[in-house]
């Protein structure tokens, strides 16, 4: 496959082995191992402060790990930082540029640092910045800034693209545009590594995921694998006013879980539990207010792995 007449980048396997990083009293990253295969979208999922950004910045060469190794193919990145800088494209969480530089000038400035570059106009067109090419960075909207940040991350035709919270603070339409761009990067044969704390984003976008919390990798796999492993089956949700006892006996019911909005019945087999619930309700003359069923999501996986919701 060819992209814009330019040969596809050949990305390599990224291996992170036993990497640690400490800031003062805080162990930000506590000995993580990851293998990121070339050509997919790899997501680091976790709440704020989980260590996602620190992990990304150590791979990018912006921070030095206290311990561990980071390898890209044959290269030890801790000793060959130039490899990372030349071949990786980086969009930081707070990608600020010179406020009074124009969009096209900003791309040109960054392009001047690299030996290998993509044509500027191609990047401007691709990220829908044609009308803003002569605008100062300070006059761009949040979504336009984000697109410029991704465009600048691509200026060196990178093999691996790192996107740190690429959709944070964007409206739904702008988020979907970013998702499309990210999928396009994968289509061009690049490896994409992104962080997010949005479950839907991780589920919709990522081929593989690592769930992170408190500097640890809790588990890793495709979104479906993670759901199968930690929350197979489905959930029956009811209004909290429905009198469900914690020790309610229903076929295939695993657990009852409560929060302010709903009482959830976790089940391995939705059909059996649901049938049992309906019978129980008829016997006890209980109206099943707010009844709905759904299959488990990453949100449930995260809740299971960390014992808390991502939004906490």
């Amino acid at each position, binding site marked *: 496959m060819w992209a814009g007449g330019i040969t596809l980048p050949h990305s390599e396997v990224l291996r992170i082995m036993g990497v640690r990083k400490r800031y003062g009293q805080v162990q930000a990253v506590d000995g993580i191992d990851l293998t990121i295969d070339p050509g997919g979208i790899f997501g680091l999922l976790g709440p704020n402060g989980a260590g996602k950004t620190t992990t990304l910045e150590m791979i990018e060469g*912006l921070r030095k790990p206290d311990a561990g190794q980071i390898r890209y193919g044959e290269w030890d990145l801790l000793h060959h930082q*130039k490899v990372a800088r030349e071949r990786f494209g*980086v969009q930081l969480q707070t990608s*600020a540029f*010179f406020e*009074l530089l124009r969009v096209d*000038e900003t791309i040109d400035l*960054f392009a001047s*640092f690299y030996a290998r570059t993509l044509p500027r106009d191609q990047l401007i067109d691709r990220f829908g910045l044609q009308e803003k090419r002569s605008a100062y960075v300070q006059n761009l909207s949040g979504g336009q800034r984000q697109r410029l940040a991704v465009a600048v991350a691509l200026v*060196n035709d990178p093999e691996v693209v790192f996107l740190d919270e690429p959709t944070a603070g964007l409206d739904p339409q702008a988020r979907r545009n970013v998702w499309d761009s990210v999928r396009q990067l994968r289509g061009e044969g690049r490896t994409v590594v992104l962080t997010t704390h949005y479950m839907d984003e991780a589920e919709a976008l990522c081929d593989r995921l690592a769930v992170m919390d408190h500097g640890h990798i809790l588990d890793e796999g495709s979104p479906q694998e993670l759901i199968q492993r930690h929350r197979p089956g489905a959930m029956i949700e009811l209004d909290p006013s429905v009198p469900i006892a914690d020790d309610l006996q229903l076929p295939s019911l695993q657990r009852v879980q409560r929060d302010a909005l709903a009482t959830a019945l976790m089940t391995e087999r939705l059909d059996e539990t649901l049938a049992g619930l309906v019978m129980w309700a008829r016997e006890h003359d209980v109206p099943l207010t707010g009844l709905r069923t759904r299959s488990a999501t990453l949100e449930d996986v995260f809740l299971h792995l960390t014992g808390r919701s991502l939004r906490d």
Partner: protein
Amino acid sequence: MKQLFKVTGALLRTLMRNRQALFWTFFFPVLLMVVFGFLGNSNFKMHLLVAGGGSQAERKVVQAFEKIPYFHVQTKGKSAAIHLVKIGQADGVLVLPTNAATPPWKAELIYNSSNVQTAQQTVSAVETAAAQINLAFTGRPAALVVQAKAASGSRSSTFLDFLLPGILALMAMQNSLFGVAGSLTRWKEKGVLRRFLATPLRPLQFLGGVVLYQLVFGLLTSAVIVAIAMVFLHANVSLPVIPLLLVVVIGMAAFLSLGFVIAGVSRTEEATLPIINVISFPMMFLSGVFFPVTTLPHFLRTIVQYLPLTYLVDGIRGMMSGQYAPWSAQVGGDMLALLIWFVVLATISARTWRWE
């Protein structure tokens, strides 16, 4: 090197678009020069009152003094005149006898004695004028005739001429401190620096680009200020360009290093600005920008003479006033002192500098 220039070029471009910053860069120096320039250039006239009760003597004396350009003469009643002198509204009053019709008239000069210097000036000016007037009245040929002739090429050395070098030194300090410490902490805070670090651009190339930008900006603004002062405000100064450039560049290097020290220890832009003010304010007022260091009390002078701004002001003013020959030992001494400041501050900044 190419990348370094790209950074410098981008920064210069953003500067040209920052109208507000440009305006303030020039506004205060020009304002200071205009205001102080007028103050320093105001024509000094001696305000002399004559109290003679409308007599013949009074008319003749007033006529005679009015011919002398540096007197502003007014007639007044005796007690009113003495009161005006006492409260400093007039420099002196010449009290004449009211009854004598012909000379000799015996006059009494009552002067304000609160300021020794003006008191002496008043007395000697009136005495000199009296001698001239006597000569004119008697018509006797003088034994010694002095003809005053201006020395060719002599300069008045106005206060503006004194101030301009101080302003240039002050700008070198302020632009360097705010430019480096202000911008770098802002870029650190907003993540601009880290974005550059994630490219093959090396940290020293980036910082080199920033320093070069500051030097270009500093020298251009200095040139504009000198041009404004000379063309529009008629400043009269010497301009040995090469040695002046050299001393300004070394001075800026010292202040840029100081800026890096501040940017290294400060985490946010809000924290940086007060630090800059604490450092620059005392130097602005003590280092001889607005008045000579020699007017300071002795104990202050012993400290102030070692401040970097003092050396910079001294070097620039020495050459612009023509007091120091461009490559003289005094200029060399100032340059050496600034170089030492530069080396010390640069060494400290290399240790305190943090990229985040």
